[in-house]
């Protein structure tokens, strides 16, 4: 966090919300944060939020929330415009921070796909890859999750307005899981849980429903994917293909998940031979 502080001003700081390529789920979550949105709306002026209201105040904006990945040439251009409009830009959700589920296409040849499907592929406006916002412009803060956690969004905005570092931990989901006293599904049930390599933030949502974490908050700080992979593919009977799929589901294009998933793909191919 580079720590730009919003100068104290008589008017409320202006907030803009932008949407790029993302599934509707992300957009919905943002609107569903009713209580949090109410608090936010009291503290900031919602100046640009096309999905929620028609009224648009002109830029510049103090805080920009950007949701979705960059996957078309139009978006590639527009994201630079967004950067110019916002003092402080926060990428929210797995799409905006890692390229999202649609980044699965990054491992396939889009042109090849397109020429098979469309008669005149040259009119199709799709980039080769779906990439995170930070691959295109400088991002001040990234909020992970698919979807993001409402509490974390509120925390980032509150912290920003108070001029402090947001309390967004970079450690594992396991810490949140254990603080809540949830029985560990990996150790007590043999479920292939990605909690030990995934960044906290969700409050260990999946383990609280007796399910394994599938890594939607992306890699934690310095994850040891190999070590977990050894346990999952060994004792817990996951295949290299399973590992590849698990790592690529939500944040596959984010390092070091990307590199590890490529490695499992290599192993998978080796197996076939």
């Amino acid at each position, binding site marked *: 966090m580079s*720590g730009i*502080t919003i100068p104290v001003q008589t008017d409320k700081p202006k907030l803009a919300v932008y949407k790029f390529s993302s599934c509707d789920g992300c957009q919905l979550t943002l609107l569903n944060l009713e209580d949090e949105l109410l608090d936010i709306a009291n503290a900031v002026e919602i100046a640009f939020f096309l999905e929620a209201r028609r009224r648009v105040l002109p830029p510049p904006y103090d805080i920009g929330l950007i949701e979705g990945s960059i996957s078309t040439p139009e978006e590639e251009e527009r994201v630079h415009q967004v950067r110019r409009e916002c003092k402080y830009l926060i990428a929210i959700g797995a799409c905006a921070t890692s390229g999202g589920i649609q980044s699965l296409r990054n491992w396939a040849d889009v042109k090849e796909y397109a020429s098979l499907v469309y008669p005149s592929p040259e009119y199709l406006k799709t980039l080769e890859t779906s990439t995170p916002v930070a691959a295109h412009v400088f991002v001040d803060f990234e909020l992970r999750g698919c979807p993001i956690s409402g509490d974390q969004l509120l925390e980032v905005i509150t912290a920003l307005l*108070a*001029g*402090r*570092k947001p309390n967004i931990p970079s450690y594992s989901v396991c810490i949140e899981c254990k603080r809540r006293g949830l029985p560990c599904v990996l150790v007590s049930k043999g479920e292939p849980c990605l909690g030990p390599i995934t960044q906290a933030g969700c409050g260990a949502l999946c383990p609280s429903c007796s399910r394994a974490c599938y890594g939607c908050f992306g890699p934690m700080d310095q994850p040891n994917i190999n070590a977990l992979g050894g346990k999952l593919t060994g004792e817990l009977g996951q295949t290299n293909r399973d590992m590849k799929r698990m790592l690529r589901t939500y944040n596959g294009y984010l390092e070091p998940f990307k590199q590890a998933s490529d490695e499992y793909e290599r192993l998978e191919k080796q197996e076939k031979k």
Partner: protein
Amino acid sequence: MTSLITETRPAPVCGLDTWVPVAAEIISINEENFNTLTFKMRFVDEIHRDNYRFLPGQFNMLYVPGVGEAAISISSDPEETDTIDHTIRVVGSVTRAIQRLGVGGVVGIRGPFGRGWPLEAMKGQDVVIVAGGIGLAPMRPAIYSLLRHRKEFGRVMLLYGCRSPDDRVFGSELDQWTEDESIQVLVTVDNATGGWVGPVGVVTNLLQRIRVDAQKTVVLVCGPPILNRVAAWQFLQLHVPAQQVYISLERNMNCGFGRCGHCQYGRKFVCTDGPVFSFDEISGVFGRKEI
């Protein structure tokens, strides 16, 4: 390994509980260099002004409501506690927030915490103070004490290093001490700018310029890790006894009173056992990576 530090520590001020800071007002700010400021603070409530005492080398946890806390050494005269100084390098969220508060702003204070310099053990001895950059801040209260009771100590030498002449903290005082000649002051800079005629290079080079009577010398060191290490080893090589070489260390701190675990350094808690250690207390781990 009995420590020569025998001073009894004053009780910390805090509110209802050790975690509740006490309000203090920023009454003036002095710019030391481009990112370092000295804040003069005064407790809002008289009772704390009356009761607050500290030892040179101790630190406070400074709190900005809703933002966080930072461990900051006390940099003023221990015998003038109506106001207390903190010399702060603005580097992150808490230090920036303190700067933003400005004169008239209210911060919280918990402290003083930690063990300070061995002033009792320094009596009758020569004292060599080695400081780098902001490391001069925890030295200033010790220097004030030395100057107040000058006759009780032998020769006093201050070796100070910083990036450039403009980066010096307490510049006017350094000039004044140099002029006074009550202590010997040697300043070196990494980059000579603006007509600097003094020494250039790392602070440990200054050692060649002073005479050290190893057995009757107490050394105080505070600076970045590399300076601490090289300085400590140089004095040990000159046969200054390990229990007479004191180093003030920096670690991540959260509680300040030995509860949170963050500041551990081998068997020591830097917040309560330190931040000042004699070399023999930490010789097993000192200079080792990632302890």
